[in-house]
C-alpha cells in the first residue's frame, strides 16, 4: 500500500494518444485513484479540438501538495502513450530514468500522408519500438490492442495499459480495479478485470530488451504505373476535375479542354475520373512489371 508520507514531491504522469482512444478516461481513472488515496491531484488536458485522429494529452500530477498543473519538458516520471507516434512526440517530456509505456498501435494522421502517390514515404515516426526501448531505462512497448482483441474486446486495450502502469506506481491492484469498475460499462467489468491482470502479468514477464510486439511495415512500395487519358472530344470544360484534383495536376487549355499538366504528381486517386460528368477521363493502372521503365503518370 502506498504510504502517503513516502512521497514528498509530486509524481508526474503524462498520458498521450489521439482523439477517440480514451486518453481522458485513462486519466480520470488515475486521478480518481490518487484522490481516493488522499493525494492532491491536478489534471490538465487538451482535447476536443482534435476530433478523431488528432493529438490528445493529459498531464496528471499528484502528491501531498501540487502547485503547477502542467509537467515541464524532461520532468515526467511516467509517459503513458496510447499511440506510437504520440509517444515519440512527447518523449522529450520524460525525465532521464523515467518510465515509458507505449502501445505500438499506429494511427497514421492525414498530414503524414501529404504525398499521396502510391509507394510514397509517409511522414510518420520512423523510430522503431526496439530503438526506443534501448534508449530509455524503464521502457515497455506492447501491442495492447492486439492483446485486447485476443480477450475478445479491442476496447479494453487501455485497461491493459493501466495494468502495465499499475506496476510503476505504488497502489494495490485491488484499488485500481475498484476505480476502473466505476468507469467501464457494467457488462464489461469482468473483461476489464482480465485485461488489467493481462497488463500486469505481461509486465512481470517482460524481458529486456523488450520484444517488439508489433512492427508496422515501412512505407508500402506498390509497383504500379498509373496513366491518365483524357478524351477531349467528350470533355465539355466544366472544370470539375481541375478544381477537385487534390494534387492540382490538371488544367483547362485555351480550348477549354482538360489536360494533364503535372503527370508526375498524379497519384491515381480517381477523383477526376469519378466526378467527370462526361466520362472523358479514364485512369489506367498496371503493374510495373508489364511496363518496364515508364514513370508514374505518363
Amino acid at each position: 500500500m502506498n504510504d502517503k508520507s513516502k512521497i514528498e514531491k509530486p509524481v508526474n504522469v503524462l498520458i498521450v494518444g489521439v482523439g477517440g482512444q480514451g486518453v481522458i478516461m485513462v486519466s480520470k481513472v488515475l486521478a480518481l485513484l490518487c484522490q481516493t488515496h488522499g493525494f492532491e491531484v491536478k489534471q490538465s488536458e487538451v482535447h476536443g479540438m482534435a476530433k478523431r485522429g488528432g493529438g490528445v494529452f493529459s498531464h496528471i500530477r499528484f502528491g501531498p501538495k501540487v502547485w503547477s498543473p502542467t509537467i515541464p519538458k524532461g520532468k515526467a516520471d511516467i509517459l503513458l502513450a496510447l499511440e506510437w507516434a504520440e509517444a515519440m512526440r512527447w518523449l522529450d517530456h520524460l525525465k532521464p530514468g523515467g518510465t515509458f509505456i507505449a502501445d505500438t498501435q499506429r494511427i497514421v494522421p492525414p498530414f503524414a500522408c501529404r504525398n499521396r502517390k502510391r509507394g510514397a514515404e509517409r511522414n510518420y515516426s520512423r523510430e522503431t519500438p526496439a530503438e526506443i526501448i534501448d534508449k530509455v531505462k524503464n521502457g515497455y512497448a506492447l501491442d495492447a490492442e492486439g492483446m485486447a482483441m485476443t480477450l475478445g474486446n479491442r476496447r479494453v486495450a487501455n485497461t491493459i495499459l493501466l495494468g502495465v502502469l499499475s506496476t510503476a506506481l505504488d497502489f494495490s491492484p485491488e484499488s485500481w480495479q475498484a476505480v476502473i469498475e466505476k468507469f467501464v460499462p457494467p457488462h464489461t467489468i469482468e473483461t476489464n478485470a482480465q485485461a488489467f491482470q493481462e497488463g500486469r502479468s505481461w509486465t512481470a514477464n517482460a524481458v529486456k530488451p523488450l520484444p517488439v510486439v508489433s512492427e508496422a511495415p515501412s512505407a508500402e512500395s506498390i509497383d504500379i504505373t498509373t496513366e491518365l487519358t483524357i478524351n477531349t472530344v467528350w470533355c465539355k470544360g466544366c472544370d470539375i476535375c481541375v478544381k477537385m484534383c487534390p494534387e492540382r495536376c490538371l488544367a483547362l487549355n485555351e480550348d477549354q479542354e482538360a489536360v494533364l499538366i503535372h503527370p508526375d504528381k498524379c497519384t491515381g486517386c480517381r477523383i477526376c475520373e469519378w466526378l467527370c460528368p462526361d466520362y472523358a477521363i479514364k485512369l489506367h493502372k498496371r503493374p510495373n512489371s508489364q511496363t518496364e521503365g515508364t514513370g508514374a503518370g505518363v
Partner: protein
Amino acid sequence: MNEISADSFDINEYLRLELFPHFLCPGCGHGMAMRAMLWAVAELGIDKDNLAIVSGIGCSGRMGAYVDANTFHVTHGRPLAFATGLKLARPDLTVIVITGDGDSLAIGGNHLIHACRRNLDITCLMLNNEIYGMTGGQVSPTTTLTRFTTTTPYGNYEPAFDACRLAEAAGASFVGREATLQVPTLKNLIREGIEHKGFSFLEVISDCTEIYGRKNALGNSPEMVLSQKSKMRPESYGGLMSNKVDQPFRPNPFQTGVLARNERQEYGELCRRHIAAKQQAE
C-alpha cells in the same frame, strides 16, 4: 457477384459509345449518377441483356439512352407505371427506373407513392436537381425556398418535398439518399438498392449548374459539387440537426445513406404465388 474494383470497372463497356459526347450541359451531376449506377450494375454482374432501364421525360430521362442495355424512354412522369408492367411481365429482367424531381414528384407523384406501396422489385433512381432543366429552368417540387427560377422570378415561396420521407411514408421498403459528389458511396447505395428485394427509392442529389446554379449564383460546376454536402439544401432537409450519418469532417445538413429499410413481401412474388395457388385449384 463479381467484385469489380475501381481499377477493373470500365464504364465504356456499358455505354452506347456512338452517341457520345452526351447532350447534358457541362458540369451536370447526372453524369456522375449514371457512372455510379453502371458501376453498381457491373459489381453485381448484371448481364446487360437482362438489364432494363425505364426513364421518364427531362434531363434525367434522356440518360437512359446512353446505356447499352434494354432502354425505354417513356412518357413524362410515367416510368414507374411502365416499369410496373414490364417487371410484372418479365420478372427475369433487372428493372431500374431513372426519373427526376419533376418527373417523379410532380406529374408522376401518384405513380411514385403507389409503386412504394406495392413494393414491386424495381430500383428507382430519382435525380434531384431541384429544377425543370429541360424546359429551361422552372420551379420544381424540390426547389429550395427563396431560390430563383424562370417561374419564380421573385424567389420561390413554395415548400419543397422531402422525397425520401414521402417514399418511406408511402411504404417503400428501401429508401436512401446520396450526393453525386460521393460517387463510390453512391455506387454502394445503388448496389444495395438493386440487391434489395422490393421497391427501392434512391434520391440522388444532383446539380443543374448551367441554369439553376447560374440563376442563383451558386458558383460554377466545381463549387456546386463541393457544396453538396455543406450548404446547398439545408431548408429542404430539416436543418443541421437532422444528420443521421456520422461524418465528422464534413458537416452534413441533410441525411444521406440508407434512411429506411424493411423486408416486406415483394409484390411480384405475391402475385405469382397467388397465380400458382389459383392454377393448382383449377
